[in-house]
């Protein structure tokens, strides 16, 4: 367990400590880190979860850095290609296939967007395969504070998943208006499915569905990983029993990590495809 002080930590405290973000914001008139979830809540909207942002940016940088490194020594000769290159190529081909099968307009943004979403979320998710105390311990040692909060898996932070979802949502709105015009975009809500004489009913039916897109995107990813991480933490409380239990859960999570990253990517592609076509 991470807490190194003399006082015995209860299981609930252990779990909730691991699930609390390191929040930086303004409290009582000065800027600083929150020392409890209540303080973090008091900071209001203009605070930032330093741990999630740090892990997120580090993993994003890992993705582009690793890609650039592999690209710098890429070769056309397939038999001579390094295995890293093969992994990157397979991933890109998977993304290309997904885009080709689900996205029917032409847009040069979709491929890179889908690739970034898949790889970045995959890396963030895979942080939950790292034993739960390692990264927090590292961060606490670096900060010199054995009580510091540090949440190692960015996708267990709703802010991060919402960041993705909101960005995708704005892209949907942007391309809808760009392709169909503002009138066409709004008309989809007003005149479907019951024609122009039932505008209020149409709005009532269509708007929640539209607004649910980003919410469902964000909550699906967040819920999966929040729950998964909680189970990892509970398993970590079991002493020696955690060894036989952690393994199957981690193996199962290899599937979840990939599946959720893929799902997020696929849904983004599908939503953007809808934004590009009249329906």
């Amino acid at each position, binding site marked *: 367990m991470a807490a190194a002080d003399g006082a015995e930590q209860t299981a609930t405290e252990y779990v909730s400590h691991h699930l609390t973000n390191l929040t930086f914001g303004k409290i009582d008139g000065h800027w600083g880190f929150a020392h409890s979830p209540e303080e973090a809540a008091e900071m209001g909207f203009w*605070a*930032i979860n330093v741990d*999630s942002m740090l892990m997120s*940016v580090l993993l994003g940088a890992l993705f582009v850095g690793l890609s650039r490194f592999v690209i710098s020594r890429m070769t056309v000769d397939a038999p001579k290609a390094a295995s890293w290159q093969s992994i990157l190529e397979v991933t890109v081909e998977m993304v290309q296939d997904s885009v080709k099968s689900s996205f029917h307009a032409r847009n040069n943004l979709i491929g*890179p967007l889908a*690739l970034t979403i898949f790889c970045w979320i995959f890396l963030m998710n895979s942080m939950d395969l790292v034993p739960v105390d390692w990264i927090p311990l590292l961060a606490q040692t670096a900060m010199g504070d054995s009580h510091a909060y540090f949440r190692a898996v960015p996708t267990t*932070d709703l*802010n991060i998943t919402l960041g993705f979802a909101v960005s995708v949502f704005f892209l949907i709105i942007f391309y809808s208006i760009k392709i169909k015009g503002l009138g066409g975009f709004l008309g989809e809500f007003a005149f479907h499915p019951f024609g122009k004489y039932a505008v209020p009913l149409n709005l009532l039916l269509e708007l929640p569905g539209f607004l649910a897109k980003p919410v469902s995107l964000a909550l699906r990813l967040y819920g999966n990983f929040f729950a998964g991480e909680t189970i990892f933490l509970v398993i970590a409380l079991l002493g020696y029993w955690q060894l036989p239990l952690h393994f199957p859960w981690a193996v199962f999570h290899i599937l979840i990590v990939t599946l959720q990253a893929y799902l997020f990517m696929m849904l983004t592609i599908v939503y953007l495809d809808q934004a590009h076509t009249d329906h």
Partner: protein
Amino acid sequence: MNLNATIIGQSIAFAFFVWFCMKFVWPPIVAILEERAKKISDGLQAAERAEKDLELAQEKSTEQMKEAKQEAASIIESANKRAAQIVDEAKEQAREEGQRIIAGANAEIEQEINRAKQQLREQVAALAVAGAEKILEKSVDQAANEEMLSKLANEL
């Protein structure tokens, strides 16, 4: 769990990484994938072409082989004909030569016979004269006898 500006931070980071990926990651990988696909399809095309060429060459070679065989057969045939002709000619020549030799031999034999007849006649004449001399017991004029005898010999 509280929502805060992390959403905005994450959105900015997301925009940056997507831009970076679109600029520096996606294009080179796609380019290399396309280049490889082109290389492979070129290779396949070349292989197909080579296969077609091979087929053509095989066809041509069998054709040539057939022609060559036919030519060889016709050459052998004409050679055989020529050989038979030569043999016939040689036979003809030999036959003519033989006949010539036989004719020559015949002529010589005839001559020999004639000469022998002549001699025989002369000897018969001399014998007759000697006989007559003996009968007459008297020498007759040698010169007149000679003349008479040669006349006699010619009449024989």
